């Protein structure tokens, strides 16, 4: 069972970059994404929001293969800056998984 990591939860909360609060789970981001990821962005961001670090780690390759093309954010009706959220995740993983900083 996925377990909340207080560390990720705190990092998300303190971050100005990550923000998926307004997401209404409509799925437009998935529809316009040229990559066709298995993981839905809305689901990934919900994992992040709750602080489920194990789940995030399962999807590291998806997070790094994102083109950051911004189609999703451009079309998001709730104006969630999805590309910024991906950048936040890459930074968090770099620091905590790959020990890069």
């Amino acid at each position: 069972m996925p377990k909340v990591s207080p560390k990720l939860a705190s990092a998300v909360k303190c971050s100005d970059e990550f923000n998926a609060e307004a997401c209404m789970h409509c799925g437009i981001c998935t529809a316009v994404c040229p990559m066709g990821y298995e993981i839905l962005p809305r689901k990934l961001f919900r994992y992040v929001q709750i602080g489920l670090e194990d789940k995030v780690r399962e999807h590291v390759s998806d997070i790094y293969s994102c083109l950051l093309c911004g189609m999703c954010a451009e079309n998001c009706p709730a104006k969630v800056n999805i590309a910024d959220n991906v950048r936040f995740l890459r930074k968090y993983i770099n620091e905590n998984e790959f020990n890069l900083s």
Partner: protein
Amino acid sequence: MNTGKRRIGVFICHCGGNISDYVDVARVAEAVAEEPGVVVSKNHMFTCSDSAQQEMIDDIREQKLDGLVIASCSPKLHMFTFRGMAERGGINQYQYVHVNLREQCSWAHTNDKTGATEKGIALVRAGIAKAALSTPLTALRVDTTPKVLVIGAGISGLRAALALSDMGLSVFVVENQKEAGGAVKNWGRMGPDNQLGRDIVRKLLDEVNTRENIMLYTDAEMVEKSGYIGDFKVTLRIGGNETVNLQVGAMIVATGFDPYEPKEGEFGYGLDGVVTLPQFRDAADGQEGPLEYNGKPVKNVVFIYCVGSRQKKSAACPAPNAYCSRYCCNAGTHMALCLEDRPGDLNQYHLYRDIRTYGHNETIYEEARNRGAVFMKYADDDAPTVEKTADGLVVKVKDQLLGGEEVEIPADLVILVTGMVPRKNETLMNLLKLPVSKDGFLNEIHIKLRPVETVIDGVFIAGSAQSPKTMAESVGSALAAVSKAGGLLMKGYVDLEPLVAKVNTDKCQWCDACLKACPYGAIERTSCDGKEVALVIQSLCKGEGACVPVCPYGAIDVEGYTDEQITAMIDACSREVVSA
């Protein structure tokens, strides 16, 4: 009674077409014209119109009518209109009988015009039979004492006392706790405007103490009550021994609520670190700096909403609280902001069923989300669980936004957002005889139109004793109760419906069957010509009639609904059935 000498006027209304489209109103008027006592039988397009009322008044005077039957809409709509008209025409208003052709004939039988007309004729005949046996009655006028007893010195009771005092009425406030102030007296920040609960109570109490016409009794309870609207007699016991006798014209019951106390094991209640919101507030309001619990810093807090509210019946919960407690979503989301305002970095998870932060409180919910509180919806039938593990408390919840995927949240503190339950106070309830709703809160007469009045005339209810309320809503209902009590007492007297029970002292043998049947305590034993008989206290009697059928001697009748009248009505409307 010789009904042949009566002079009854019958007026059948078209109600535009509301009645006449389905009921042949001309035929009804014609069919009843020869009934015993009828001297006028007419139709009007709208009997409630000014011109029709004037014509009916002319008929009353010219024909010297002593009974009146109007067959129109529901008595709820126009009974008082026509009672007033009868009085203006010179007939006693209780000699007017209202027949409902619209709701009971035309609207009910749109597919059967002949049947609707026949039913209309039968109902009007019954009305005529009743009018033929009607007698003039006089409203019961009761003088009122310009003093009010407020029961409960919480927010609602104190605010009500001040408003009554503003009107110039004397007020007694009785509080059974040692200290006045009610549930809110020790509370800190409250939504939506962050005023401190204790400051609000302090201000009210300071003001109450300056008023010469308010007397506040604490550590006191009501031990005796008698009398009726306008003139209640009450005995209070103060501090366990001293007693005080009071005479008041009205009472406002503002006895408040109790917080729901979860059962052992309910959402982990009983485990170290699982507390209710009121318990948490008591502990946290006095703290400064980063949040601590039992001396340890708190990093992860989980709130669980709807604890003790909106329950479903089950083996574990045989008597569920089916209602929503209204204030808890507001209190929980507001607490999220209070926690965010503290130093230290803390993660908070709010597990809810539905968030109901209506009005101003919606912005608090929004701010809580924006500041990082995570809200997770759980399914009604799949509630979160709380367990104690070697690593501390763990809450498991199926997040609806993840399609029901189960998530484990390690928690330093679990706060159960509990609702309100009715306050238990059997002595008081036995004295006041106030009905309670199926939820156990005090019942109003009409949930929308008469929200602070009770079936006991002169006794009003206010605040969360009636149903769960926020502070603002409690004060609103307290002031509504004040306006009803003030309106009653400022006039100096009250007129009551004379449609009450009366005892035939010749027939009565005093067996106390009526006393036991009366839910309003309106029957007393008295002595009449050396014999014990029942006495009806007219101002307490509601004319409900529970005493009538239980009397083995047929000694009780209800004015306006006498056995003779009811029998005559049945005979009149069932004539064809009986003869066929």
